[in-house]
């Protein structure tokens, strides 16, 4: 299949960007979206031009590095699929595909399709962990956890931090990411001692950079891991409770 790509090219963080048009010819419908870009880049390198910069790592849909806006949809048209797992059979011969980086104040563009997602790291650093004394591992099943709780915590832990939720949100809000990172700890016994402090800290850091939730639900639709906005409601509840109970500075 032959495709026309309109790709956002931007030389650096403070450089002006623009769309460039590229022809992708003889693309196999079995190739992934990133493999298609690899072939385009191969052609660019052979012609002595700068290849299109994009992020990728595992290429099996679990690392969360390969996000990009494809025809206005985060990770492209196929639901619950990362860009690397999107295959060209989702497109038709002769299609024009518009490819852009995530756009949000929290995700400044570094180059072409690559954005800086370290704002997510700052949210996690502020409380997305549990403090435990190291030592020998405790016996398995020493801490009983109801199956439902374990399942819900696992659903939240499926978040790969790709940033599609922020990219899809008209408010540039990181509620879905933050609430998933909170919920996978706040739902489990191990997360309880630091629950209030964690919630206040992570919400605080989130609000320094990202927007506010208007309950559009676009994040849930864009999430390649199908994280539910129920976790956002849980975060709101935990945050209110934490504000009322936590004695900061005491």
């Amino acid at each position, binding site marked *: 299949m032959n495709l026309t790509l309109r790709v956002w090219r931007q030389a650096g963080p403070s450089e002006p960007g623009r769309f460039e048009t590229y022809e992708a010819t003889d693309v196999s419908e079995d190739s992934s979206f990133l493999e298609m870009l690899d072939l385009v880049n191969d052609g660019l390198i052979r012609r002595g031009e700068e290849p299109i910069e994009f992020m990728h790592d595992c290429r099996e849909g679990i690392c969360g590095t390969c996000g990009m806006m494809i025809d206005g949809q985060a990770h492209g048209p196929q639901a619950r699929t990362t860009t690397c797992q999107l295959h060209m059979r989702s497109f038709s011969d002769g299609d024009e595909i518009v490819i852009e980086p995530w756009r949000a104040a929290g995700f400044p563009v570094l180059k072409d399709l690559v954005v800086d997602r370290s704002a997510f790291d700052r949210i996690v650093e502020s409380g997305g962990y549990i403090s435990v004394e190291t030592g020998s591992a405790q016996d398995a099943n020493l801490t009983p956890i109801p199956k439902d709780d374990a399942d819900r915590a696992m659903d939240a832990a499926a978040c790969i931090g790709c940033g599609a939720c922020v990219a899809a949100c008209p408010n540039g809000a990181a509620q879905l990411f933050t609430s998933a990172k909170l919920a996978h700890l706040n739902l489990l016994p191990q997360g309880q001692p630091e629950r209030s402090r964690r919630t206040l800290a992570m919400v605080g850091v989130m*609000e320094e950079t990202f927007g506010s939730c208007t309950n559009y639900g676009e994040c849930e639709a864009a999430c390649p891991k199908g994280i539910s906005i129920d976790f956002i409601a849980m975060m709101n509840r935990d945050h209110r409770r934490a504000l009322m109970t936590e004695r900061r500075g005491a």
Partner: protein
Amino acid sequence: MATTTDAAGATTRPTPFLLVLYRSALGKKYLMAVSGIVGLGYILAHMLGNLKLYQSPEAFNAYAEFLRRLLYPILPESGALNLLRAVLVLALVVHVVAAAQLTALNRRARPERYRSRRDYVVADFAARTMRWTGVIVLLFLAYHLADLTWGWVNPAPEGATVYDKVVASFSRTPIAALYLVANAALGAHLFHGVWSLFQSMGWSSPRFDPVRRTLATAFTAVVIGGNLSFPIAVQLGIVA
């Protein structure tokens, strides 16, 4: 409650809880939800009370008089009414100011638009137009008060009863149409707002979640259905 520590290490007075709440964007959303709930209670009571329009002019005017003498003589005449008005004004101010500040925050958080055709995937019309329906309802509210509370733009003669004022106002077709448009905007605002407040307040559970949409739809249908019926009834001559 948060406390602050000054340079010398001495603990100063704790920051009031509401201020701590208001400083965070999540807190502004709680306050928008709470002030929204106050508004919902008022809107429902307003619609139910106005159904007296169908009973008789006397019943309707007596209801208006009852509101003025609510809790009298415990409170002075119009005392309870003015207290309720104060609560409503406060709720409205909180709702509008928080919305404006959050909108500004969201614009800053998403300064650049997508150049490609970026359409909403799941967000419905009501959710996307909250800011506009909110503004329309606010402008309408100003007119509505000038019309029927203060009487500045009401066509009824001086000293007319509340019933006569309503009929005089709704008899003008453009004004009846204005009420229909404003209620359509209010309906869209409620349809998203009633559902949305459960998310903002964190009122979510597997059993309850499917009911939230139904509740929002039913509330909107009842309130807007009732509100729309008044100008239509006057226009059709059912209420005259």
